[in-house]
C-alpha cells in the first residue's frame, strides 16, 4: 500500500502546531519574567543579554515539552504501526489520519513522539542526579576544604580515584544487567541518598540549635520527607506508593551521581579553601561559632555563584552522560525513547535512512546548548557584581 505524504512546509507547520502548549507556556513565563525582570534578582538579570534569553528560552522549551509530552505527541512512543516502518517524514498514518511528522524508525514507531517523550526521561534524571551529586560533593567538599589535613588527603584521594576512571569503563562496570543481582547498586544508593538528609539536618541544626521551637519542626520535616523519599528510592517500599523508581533507573541514577560528585567535591573544596581566608570567616570563628555553622552558613552562601554556574553546566554534562549510557545500550531499556538510545538505534542505519537520527541528536544538542548558554550568561552576570 502506498503511503500519502504531506509537504515539507506542512511538516514545519505541523510540528509548530503540535508544540502549542509549549508556546503558550513559554509566552506566559518569558513574558512575565521579562516584565518583572527588575524584581527577580539574578534570574531577572539573565534577560539583559541575548545569550541569557536564548539559554532560558531553550531550557524552558524542553522543560515544558517534558511536562506536556502526552499532549504534544500524537502517538504512543512505544507503539508500533507496521505499515509505517522506515516511513519518510510527513507520512500519513492511514488508520488515524495523523501524520508521522519526522517519519518512522526501523520498528515503525513515530520518531517525533519518541523525541518528545525522550525529553521526559532526560529532564527527570539529569537534574535530579545533578542535585544529588551537588549534595554529596558539597557535604564532603566543605570539611575537606575547611579542615584540610588528613580528612582532606583521604577524601581527595578517593575523589581522584573516581576521576581517574574513564567514565565509560565506570559505566560498564556499574551499569551491567548482572549487577542488579548484587547489593552494590542498592548499597551505593543507600549511601548517596543519605547525604541530602545529613546535609539538611546539619544545616538546620547548626542554625537553630538554640531555638528549639524553630529547630524541631524543621528537623522533623527533613527527617519525614527525606526518610519517605529515601525509603521509596532505595528500598522501593514507599508506604504511599508515590515515590517509585525502576531498578534499572536506580542503577543509572547511582552511576551518574557516582561519576559526577567528585567533580563537585573538587570545586567546593577549592572554593572553601579560598573563602576560608576571608575576614568574615575569621569574625565567625572569633564569635565562637561551630565549624559546621561557619561552613554551611558563612562559606557556602558566598560560594553560591560559581556553584550555580557549575550546576547548569553539570546538568548539561549529565545529559551527555545519559546519552552515552543510551548510546552503549547500558541500563536503559532497549525500547526506551530516550535520546541516547534513539541515536544508537538510528546511527546503525545511517546508510539507508537518516531521518530517525536527526531529531534526537538535535534535541540533545539544543538542550545542552541551552544549559551552556545559561551558565555562560550567569557567569557574566556574577562577574559584573
Amino acid at each position: 500500500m502506498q503511503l500519502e505524504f504531506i509537504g515539507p512546509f506542512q511538516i514545519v507547520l505541523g510540528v509548530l502546531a503540535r508544540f502549542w502548549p509549549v508556546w503558550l507556556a513559554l509566552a506566559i513565563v518569558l513574558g512575565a519574567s521579562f516584565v518583572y525582570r527588575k524584581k527577580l534578582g539574578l534570574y531577572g538579570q539573565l534577560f539583559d543579554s541575548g545569550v541569557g534569553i536564548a539559554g532560558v528560552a531553550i531550557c524552558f522549551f524542553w522543560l515544558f515539552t517534558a511536562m506536556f509530552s502526552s499532549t504534544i505527541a500524537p502517538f504512543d512512543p512505544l507503539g508500533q504501526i507496521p505499515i509505517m516502518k522506515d516511513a519518510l517524514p510527513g507520512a500519513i498514518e492511514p488508520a488515524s489520519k495523523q501524520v508521522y511528522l519526522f517519519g518512522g524508525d526501523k520498528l515503525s514507531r513515530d520518531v517525533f513522539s519518541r523525541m518528545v517523550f525522550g525529553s521526559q526521561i532526560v529532564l527527570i534524571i539529569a537534574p535530579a542526579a545533578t542535585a544529588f551529586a551537588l549534595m554529596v560533593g558539597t557535604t564532603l567538599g566543605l570539611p575537606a576544604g575547611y579542615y584540610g589535613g588528613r580528612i582532606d588527603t583521604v577524601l581527595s584521594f578517593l575523589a581522584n580515584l573516581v576521576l581517574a576512571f574513564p567514565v565509560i569503563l565506570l559505566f560498564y562496570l556499574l551499569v551491567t544487567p548482572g549487577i542488579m543481582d548484587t547489593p552494590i547498586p542498592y548499597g551505593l544508593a543507600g549511601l548517596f541518598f543519605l547525604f541530602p538528609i545529613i546535609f539538611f539536618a546539619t544545616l538546620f541544626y547548626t542554625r537553630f540549635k538554640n531555638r528549639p521551637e524553630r529547630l524541631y519542626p524543621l528537623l522533623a520535616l527533613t527527617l519525614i520527607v527525606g526518610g519517605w523519599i529515601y525509603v521509596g528510592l532505595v528500598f522501593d517500599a514507599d508506604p504511599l506508593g508515590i515515590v517509585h523508581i525502576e531498578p534499572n533507573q536506580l542503577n543509572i541514577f547511582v552511576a551518574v551521581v557516582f561519576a559526577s560528585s567528585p567533580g563537585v567535591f573538587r570545586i567546593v573544596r577549592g572554593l572553601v579553601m579560598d573563602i576560608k581566608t576571608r575576614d568574615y570567616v575569621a569574625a565567625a570563628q572569633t564569635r565562637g561559632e561551630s565549624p559546621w555553622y561557619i561552613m554551611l552558613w558563612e562559606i557556602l552562601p558566598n560560594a553560591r555563584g560559581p556553584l550555580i554556574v557549575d550546576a547548569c553546566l553539570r546538568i548539561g554534562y549529565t545529559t551527555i552522560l545519559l546519552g552515552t549510557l543510551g548510546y552503549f545500550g547500558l541500563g536503559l531499556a532497549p525500547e526506551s525513547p530516550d535520546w541516547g538510545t534513539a541515536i544508537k538505534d538510528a546511527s546503525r542505519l545511517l546508510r539507508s535512512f537518516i531521518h530517525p537520527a536527526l531529531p534526537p541528536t538535535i534535541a540533545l544538542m539544543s538542550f545542552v546548548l541551552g544549559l551552556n548558554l545559561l551558565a555562560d550568561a550567569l557567569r557574566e552576570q556574577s562577574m559584573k557584581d
Partner: protein
Amino acid sequence: MLAFILRRMGTIALTMLCLTMIVFFMINLEPNLKKLAISQLDMRSPAEQIESWLVKNGYRQNFFVRYGQWLGLVQKQPNIDPATGKATPRFSFCDEPAEPYYGGILQGDFGCSTKFKTKVSAKLFPALGATGLLMFWVMVTMVPIALLIGILAGMREGSRTDRALSVASITTTATPEYVSGVIFTVIFATWLGWLNGSAASATGQGITFYNFTLPVMTMAIYGIGYIARMTRASMVEVMTQQYIRTARLKGLSFGNVVVKHALRNALIAPFTVIMLQFPWLLTGVVIVETMFRYQGFGFTLVEAAGNNDIDLLLGCSLVSVFVVLSTQLISDIGYAYLNPRIRVQ
C-alpha cells in the same frame, strides 16, 4: 622537584593498585563470572557444567589469591587434567608452563583474552598503537584550531568576533561525539558522499583522508570548544595587564603586541587544559571507535567489557588509568616549568 615527582609516582602506583582491585572485584562478581562461563561454553549449559568450568579454570579461588596471581605476587598453579594427570593450559590459545610460576603484571604478563582468543598483550598493544595514531591526528587538528579561535576571540574582548566565536565554541562543547558523529556522517557521507562513514578499512589498509577524516573531526570538535574558551579567558586576562598597555603606549602595532607580548603569557593556562584533555579524549575514543568501527583501544575496551573478558578489561583499565594519571603529572610539571612564578614545594 625530584622529591615531588617521586611522591607523585608513589600516589600513581597506589591509585593504580586501588583501581585495579576495584575493577578486579567488579568483574569477578557472580553474575559476571556466569556470563563469562556461558560465553565460553554454550548458551544452554546446565548450572553444574558452568560451575565445574569456573572451578577448573581457577575462577573459584580466593579473591586475594587470584588478585595476587594477576599482579604476579602469588604463584600461578598449572592446570592439571584429572583424567591424564598431565598439565594442560587453561586456554588452548595461551601457553603456560607446566610448573608453578609467577606470571602477572609485575612480570609483564597481562594474561589471556577469552574474547579474542589470544594473549592480552598481542591484542592490547596493537590497539593502543592504532588509537595513538587517531589521537595524534586529533591533537594535530584540535590544538591549533582551538588556540587560534581562543586567541582571536580573546584579543578584543566584547567585539563581534569575540561574541560569534564564543557562541560557536559553546556550541561545540554542547555536541558530544555521538551527536557530532551522526551529524557529520549524515552531511559528509550520506549527502555529499565525500567521506567514508566507517573507518573499518583504516585498520587493514592503512589510513587515508577518505576513511579517517570523520573520526578525527568528530573527536576534535568536542575538545575544540573547551580549549578555545580556556585560551580566550587566559588571553582576555593577559590583554588587561599593565605590560600590554605599556607595549601599546610605546607605539607597537596591535598585531605585534599580541604575538610578541600577549601570546606567550596567554598560552600557559591552555597547556594544562590540553594535557588534562587526555582523559576526556579517552572516553571520546571509545565512542568514536565504536561508531566508526575503528579497531583501536576504545573498541577493545567495549568488546572486553561487553564479553566480561577479565584479563583484557584489567589490562585496558590499567592502561587508561596510567594515561590519565601520567598526563596529570606531566601537566603539573610542565606548568611549573612554563610559569616560573609557580614553584612546587
